[in-house]
């Protein structure tokens, strides 16, 4: 209760300081809460951007597709590299080298390959989400106590049973952590992709508002996008906590 009050107090102080500073400086550039809040209201009531729902839906759909691809490919590649020693030795280093490249350098070529529409955003979201999932699978496999595999073999377990009953539960916490990071990065990939160049989606709206110096709308759009991302992360962290309780 006391901590909640303390946090509210800090928040109120920050908002007031922001308001004062923005008014003292330039309200257009620093967007005080007194103009951001009405802009947010107008945004949510579809006054400023009547086609907001279709943009939001597009972004969410791009994220969903990019994430689904990241999960599918990340799990497949991670298990292939982690479970088959030859494959891991041959391709593991390549994966690590690719991961070290700052991902943004790929984006221009993705736009050239996939165009300005959703495909390039999905590709970028996939590229960002894929690595943490693959690496989490690899780390998770290494973290499973080999004695448990020996025990399962002694009890007659075949490879598929070992996979389902020993490996997956033994690495679940790490795996879910990687899936959560992957989701966050897929979201970043899609939105960065939209901001860097697109005709539709939340990133495109943000770019539009920013380009026209509609700074209050810009802030409102950013806040809304943040809220959507935060909601997805909260859902993911709840799943993660359940997995942790289960694995320990």
């Amino acid at each position, binding site marked *: 209760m006391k901590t909640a009050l303390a946090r509210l107090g800090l928040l109120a102080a920050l908002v007031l300081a922001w308001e004062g500073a923005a008014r003292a400086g330039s309200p257009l550039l620093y967007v005080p809460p007194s103009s951001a809040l009405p802009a947010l209201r107008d945004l949510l009531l579809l006054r400023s951007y009547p086609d907001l729902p279709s943009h939001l839906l597009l972004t969410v759909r791009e994220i969903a597709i990019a994430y689904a691809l990241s999960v599918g490919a990340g799990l497949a590649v991670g298990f292939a590299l982690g479970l088959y020693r030859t494959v891991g030795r041959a391709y593991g280093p390549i994966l690590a080298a690719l991961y070290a490249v700052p991902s943004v350098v790929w984006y221009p070529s993705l736009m050239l390959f996939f165009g300005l529409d959703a495909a390039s955003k999905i590709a970028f979201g996939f590229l960002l989400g894929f690595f943490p999932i693959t690496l989490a699978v690899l780390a998770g496999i290494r973290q499973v*106590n080999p*004695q*448990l595999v*020996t*025990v*399962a*073999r*002694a*009890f*007659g*377990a075949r490879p598929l*049973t070992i996979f389902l*009953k*020993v490996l997956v*539960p*033994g690495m*679940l916490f790490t795996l879910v952590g990687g899936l959560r990071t992957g989701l966050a990065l897929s979201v970043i990939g899609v939105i960065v992709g939209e901001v860097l160049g697109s005709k539709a989606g939340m990133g495109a709206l943000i770019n539009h508002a920013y380009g026209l110096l509609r700074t209050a709308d810009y802030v409102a759009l950013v806040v809304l996008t943040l809220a959507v991302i935060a909601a997805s992360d909260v859902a993911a962290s709840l799943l993660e906590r359940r997995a942790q309780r*289960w*694995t*320990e």
Partner: protein
Amino acid sequence: MTLIAIEGVARRYQTASGAVDALRDVSLSVDAGEFCTIIGPSGCGKSTLLGMLGGLVVPDAGRILIAGRPVAGPDPRTVATVFQDPGLFPWRTVVENLEFGLELQGVARAERRRAATELLGPLGLRGFAPKYPRELSGGMRQRVAIGRALAIDTPIVLMDEPFGALDEQTRMLMGEWLLEIWRRTRKTVIFVTHSLHEALALSGRVAVMTARPGRIKSVLELPMPYPRAMESPEIVALRAKLWHEIREESARAMAGS
């Protein structure tokens, strides 16, 4: 009646510093219902031998027959294994760990739960069914691992230094407890240890292994009834004899390692 026949098995491992002969020409036969202990210095290949009996390690030469049939991989209907590291599944409760083998054999949920619950009493784990391994003491964990092996009710149980990681008092109590279980179930137990005390207190026969490459050096018969008075003249004499057999091998193992 001979249940287990080990016939001239050998095993060599490739390591970074060249090939290592773990076992060379090991032969031993074990009768049904026997409590047979294998004792030897560390690194003498005891665990490798047990791994072969359990079908986890393939011999380079020789063969192992169980009830007349050669071992060709793990056979959970005949052999159950208890390891020094109990290897309990941390995400499974005690009762779920006990059920593991039955689950793999496709026993129905209610049936395997009943079988596992029945074991809790003899294991001294009544009331611990819903606990997780991390909530148990070392001795309790090892009892769960033994229970997991007993649950699949095989005629043969292999034990690879099951009490090796426990403190001395717990070890002695666990030994008494294990004897009780063995006398009730009359399973054939092959028990690997490097403890003279355990070998003398528990076994009907003790096979002494040499330092690497491991061979069977000698086999001692221990016909005394249980429970054994460890200070009786017979046991003290056997202890001296056993120590005499092992001493030289342990010294060689120490010098070699």
